[in-house]
């Protein structure tokens, strides 16, 4: 069934199909529409879930952890300040191997206050042990909602999953979205079954302390869980394509990269404009390409190395800055290339902070700058920056 939906609404439709049993809800712009739609679905009976009006984001995640520990499929959604407020619980959920799914509407973080989109909120939590996906459009948002549980709940993975949607640009923009049939969704995603739960027949102690001798082993296992998602994401997308007919490309999505000299690596909704610009430059004989990172964790080390192996130069375009250094995505991409012994010229372009527009001419300028050489770290519309 096709419907005209915003990114938030599309995600909520995906969650309805995924049948979470407990939803903890707390409002924050620009995520609110997700929890509003879900409350309506619970009210009209099309979604059978315990809908809990928690009193903060910390409690939203704490409640989701409790529900997941009870063996229930749990969902919550947040953004920006809310994500930071629940940060303690993010590490708790991943350390406890609870496959909670959360939608995060990527939004700037105060100060100064700002409700518009950038990716500093979620990228600041890369080390929290969550799988992190970044959607480009509303259809992908819906599809991620449905795939997320299958990936997170896989026994080799058992890791919580954060699906990121660019605030406003994606959460509030309407597109035609294909909503899968209920029967197909149920065939794709069976109910959650786990041993990692409270069991009244065989009681257990959960979320315990582990001293220096064993703590490290638990952390190693947690790392293995996130890494295991690499394979499971590919398998899940294959099965998804068989049932629903839509294909996804794993941790990254490449566009015109096979013979590209100049590539922009980016993530989220800005990728569309990058592809349009690449098309335009191709008409002028410039071999431009685009890599869209779909998953920041697990990080696509090998995929990025493969696609950038023969480029003349690449730019990492991101709505993020790690103050005192550079954009975090740039750091991650450079690490991937270094590990594979690739020495292509790399540049960082930081833009879109606090929702500031990145235009087609900005992107054209990036391709031109990396072809001609520029500062290593550049702030779009401000200029080159000193990164020490």
């Amino acid at each position, binding site marked *: 069934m096709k419907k005209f939906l915003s990114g938030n609404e599309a995600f909520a439709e995906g969650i309805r199909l995924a049948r979470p049993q407990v939803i903890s809800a707390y409002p924050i712009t620009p995520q609110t529409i997700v929890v509003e739609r879900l409350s309506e679905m619970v009210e009209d009976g099309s979604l059978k879930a315990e809908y809990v009006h928690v009193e903060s984001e910390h409690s939203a995640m704490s409640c989701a952890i*409790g529900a997941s520990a009870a063996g229930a499929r749990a969902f919550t959604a947040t953004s920006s300040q809310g994500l930071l407020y629940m940060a303690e619980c993010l590490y708790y959920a991943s350390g406890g191997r609870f496959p909670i799914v959360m939608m995060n509407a990527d939004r700037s973080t105060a100060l100064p206050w700002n409700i518009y989109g950038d990716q500093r909120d979620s990228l600041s939590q890369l080390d929290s042990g969550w799988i992190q996906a970044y959607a480009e459009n509303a259809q992908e948002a819906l599809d991620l909602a449905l795939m997320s549980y299958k990936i997170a709940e896989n026994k080799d993975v058992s890791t919580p999953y954060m699906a990121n949607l660019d605030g406003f640009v994606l959460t509030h923009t309407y597109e035609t979205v294909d909503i899968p049939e209920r029967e197909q969704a149920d065939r794709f995603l069976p109910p959650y079954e786990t041993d990692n739960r409270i069991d009244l027949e065989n009681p257990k102690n959960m*979320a315990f302390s582990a001293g220096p001798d064993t703590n490290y082993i638990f952390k190693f296992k947690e790392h293995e869980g996130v890494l295991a998602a690499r394979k499971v994401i590919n398998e899940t997308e294959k099965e998804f394509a068989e049932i629903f007919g839509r294909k996804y490309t794993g941790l990254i999505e490449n566009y015109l990269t096979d013979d590209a000299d100049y590539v922009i690596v980016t993530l989220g909704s800005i990728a569309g404009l990058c592809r349009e610009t690449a098309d335009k430059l191709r008409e002028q004989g410039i071999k431009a390409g685009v890599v869209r990172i779909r998953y920041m964790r697990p990080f696509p080390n090998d995929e990025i190395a493969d696609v950038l192996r023969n480029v003349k130069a690449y730019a990492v375009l991101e709505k993020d800055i790690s103050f005192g250094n550079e954009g975090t995505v740039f750091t991650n991409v450079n690490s991937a290339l270094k590990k594979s012994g690739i020495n292509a010229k790399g540049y960082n372009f930081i833009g879109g902070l606090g929702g500031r527009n990145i235009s087609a001419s900005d992107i054209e300028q990036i391709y031109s700058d990396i072809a001609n050489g520029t500062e290593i770290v550049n702030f779009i519309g401000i200029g080159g920056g000193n990164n020490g």
Partner: protein
Amino acid sequence: MANKTAESISRDEFFYGHKACAGCGGSLAVRAALKVLGPNVVSVLPAGCMSAVGFNFPQLCFSNNSIISTFAGTASMLTGVEAGLRARGYKDFTAVGFAGDGGTADIGIQALSGAIDRNDNIIYICYDNEAYMNTGIQKSGLTPFGAKTTTTPAGKNIHGNIRPKKNMFEIAAAHDIPYAATASIGNLPDFIKKVQKASQIQGTKYIHVIAPCPTGWGVAPDETVAIAKEVVESGLWYLAEYENGNFKLNYKPKEFSSVEAYLKKQGRFKHLADEDIKLIEASRDKKWEYINKNFEL
């Protein structure tokens, strides 16, 4: 159902092998409550004394389902556990939280208030030892006036803690909670009866039990129960219930025992001057004036 007493309580143990200090009042409260609630209880304990002494992998000390929550998240995790088990079709279980005074009255009060507001079907037991004992005796919102802690030193200028205890019992009651009660581990039959009663009531239940900490209070390990009786006899704590919109006093000492004697037994109050003790007595009398006027006997 007949009320359980110390004589009829189960011989089963659900919390043992832990490494709490000798004479720990908190572990006594947890042990007794779990005996009342039985094997189908799921307990949630935040970071704090009981989780620190009971959950050290691989030495795990609860024989019922138990889980540690974040420090602020006792009530919110209880909510999730209760909702999750219910969503999975379980009916015969009790979700109970055991949090200390800091975990309840300070960092956890927001989540607790939220759970009471939603009227989630949980029992929340605050074992009040009147300071952050697990981290080494720092002042909490439930540390009484005058108490010396490691962050409220007793010096020439300031005589320990300068603020009275928050009244968590009445804060819980102000939500119009289905059931709230105060208790003391110095009167176990009363505590057990209240836990039993709470387990029969639908909605949120809050029980605030005084549980002395010999380490933090500066009393001998074998004086825990006696000092927990004396705090009630001296009128500095009271045994009461809130139900159906009414406060009820469960026990009224015929005559208060000496406040000074109660205080001077404890290392944390040794420094108090006569005028400090007079202030404590005056505040007790004011409280009892209120109780006598507003609580049924």
